[in-house]
């Protein structure tokens, strides 16, 4: 147990060092991700300026900005750029061999690699995020209670796990199909819409209620909705339990897929 923790710590440390090598590229890429946030806020401003009523589907412009910013925080935890395509590339070119011949768990390794990726991202992104939230502070109603904040933090942690497990699962499909670019594109499209990244899920009426049974809402909508006070304490507990079940289920499916995938792995690429 202690040895495994040490291995994970060294993996995390080494990955952090690796992430910091190309600091200029990384800082630039992180900062550029804020550009869509700003443009989206302006877009909603334009939509609301021409709206017949002050509120649309129960959201005022301020509510929408607050929702959008909180959904982006959720996305900062659940999005996993390059994870699935990285696994597929490693399977295709044979780099994955090192994970299969060394006494190391590939999924565990990728997990800590991603934790390092996120930690460096937060290090760079926290400042700009705080600035945006400060500039938009009037759109928030104030700090929620401790229970809501605790539930929000738990939902973000599980959003990270869920995002990781979904993308790694897509990556593992490359054991069968080698190329997963199209699959990943479809996932990104579905994710954008069904996670509540594009619009809040409660804008979708009956359809929104139906898709709420899927795991995608936990990637962006759910953490934002918690902070906006959309859930009662009882509902919060229930939703967090469901999210935990999704995480466990996805973990099991990942493990099965990996075990079956390596069985049919052809170890191409030399």
């Amino acid at each position, binding site marked *: 147990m202690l*040895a495994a923790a040490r291995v994970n710590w*060294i993996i995390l440390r*080494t990955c952090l060092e690796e992430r910091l090598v190309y600091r200029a590229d990384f800082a630039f890429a992180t900062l550029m991700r804020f550009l869509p946030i700003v443009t989206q806020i302006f877009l909603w401003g334009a939509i609301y300026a021409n709206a017949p009523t002050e509120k649309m589907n129960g959201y005022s412009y301020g509510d929408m900005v607050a929702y959008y910013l909180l959904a982006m925080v959720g996305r900062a935890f659940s999005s996993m750029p390059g994870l699935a395509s990285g696994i597929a590339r490693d399977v295709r070119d044979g780099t994955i*061999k090192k994970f*299969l*011949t060394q*006494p*190391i768990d590939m999924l565990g390794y990728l997990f800590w690699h991603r934790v390092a990726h996120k930690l460096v991202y937060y290090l760079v992104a926290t400042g700009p995020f705080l600035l945006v939230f400060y500039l938009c502070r009037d759109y928030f109603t104030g700090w929620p209670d401790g229970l809501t904040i605790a539930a929000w933090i738990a939902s973000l942690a599980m959003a990270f796990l869920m995002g990781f497990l979904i993308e790694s699962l897509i990556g593992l499909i490359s054991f069968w199909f080698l190329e997963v670019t199209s699959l990943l594109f479809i996932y990104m499209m579905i994710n954008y819409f069904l996670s509540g990244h594009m619009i809040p899920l409660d804008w979708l009426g009956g359809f929104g209620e139906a898709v709420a049974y899927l795991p995608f809402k936990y990637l962006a909508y759910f953490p934002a909705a918690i902070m906006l006070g959309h859930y009662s304490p009882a509902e919060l507990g229930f939703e967090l339990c469901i999210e935990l079940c999704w995480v466990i289920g996805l973990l099991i499916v990942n493990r099965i897929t990996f075990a079956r995938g390596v069985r049919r792995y052809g170890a191409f*690429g030399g």
Partner: protein
Amino acid sequence: MPAIEVRDLQKTFYVYRKREGLLASVKGLFHRDYKEVRAVDGVSFTIETGEMVAFLGPNGAGKTTTLKLLSGLVFPTAGEATALGHVPWKRENSYRRRFSLVMGQKNQLWWDLPAQESFRLHKEIYRIDATEFDRRLDELTSLLEVRQLIGQPVRELSLGERMRMELIAALLHSPDLLLLDEPTIGLDVVSQRRVQEFLKHYQAERKITVLLTSHYMKDVEALCDRAIIINEGKIKHDGPLEGIVDRFSRHKIMDLQFDGVSVPEDISQYGRVIESRPPRVKLEVPRNQIPEILSALLSRYNIEDVGVQERPLEEVIAEMFEADKSDKTAPAVEVTVGESR
């Protein structure tokens, strides 16, 4: 005690046969033809603990696939194998801690970080004691002459330096079995020799079991006493290196130096001239006719010096594979399966 035991091992791949052209590509969306490729076809051999064995064969012969089977990277279609008492494809950590696979064309080190960071990670992954780790790292970096380079990012190292770092990473946990796939591929002569010398020294010191594939016969001749030759997934020869030349070469090289400044014009009647630098000439002559040819030459010409050598191993093996190809094209001629232990 055998370190590796392989019995009737088979690995079949199904490869998509894509026909040429755009139309064929479109058709391929609806129907695909797959070709069955038997990369390893009923291979059996045993390697004793402490042996250093060369695994030879042309491209696509099944060498690397066999190494992949023994390292647990791929599952076999049929057959059995044990390595260090483990079934490789079960991928038990207790086995993975005892062997290393080095692939000359694959980089296992962190590209953007100094090699020492990868070594530190290996220390934890393989649970190497800190004192032992320092001792081994010190020994290996000194033997491979890269002590000054371990703090430099891997991407900035030359190919030869990188391969030496790969070897260090592979040996830090002191494996009992080392699987080497083309460890000197792409290296210059100096780096090749350095790697060869190191492997020879290390294996002699530690008595570890080594299975090596290489296209460079110099590697093989410098390192191994025994060779397993594989072609089209089948073993053609398993035995001492010298045995290959005896068994498969029907010719020897006769090196003659004539008295005077020229080589007789009709010298080609005694054998195929492979090199002529008057007054020296090298002839390829049938092994079983050497006494008669030599006696005829000595009685007819004034010869100052004569030597008879075996043909280079590389040539003999290449000829053997060529012969296999010809046999395949000629119907009703069965390809003889060589001995296998």
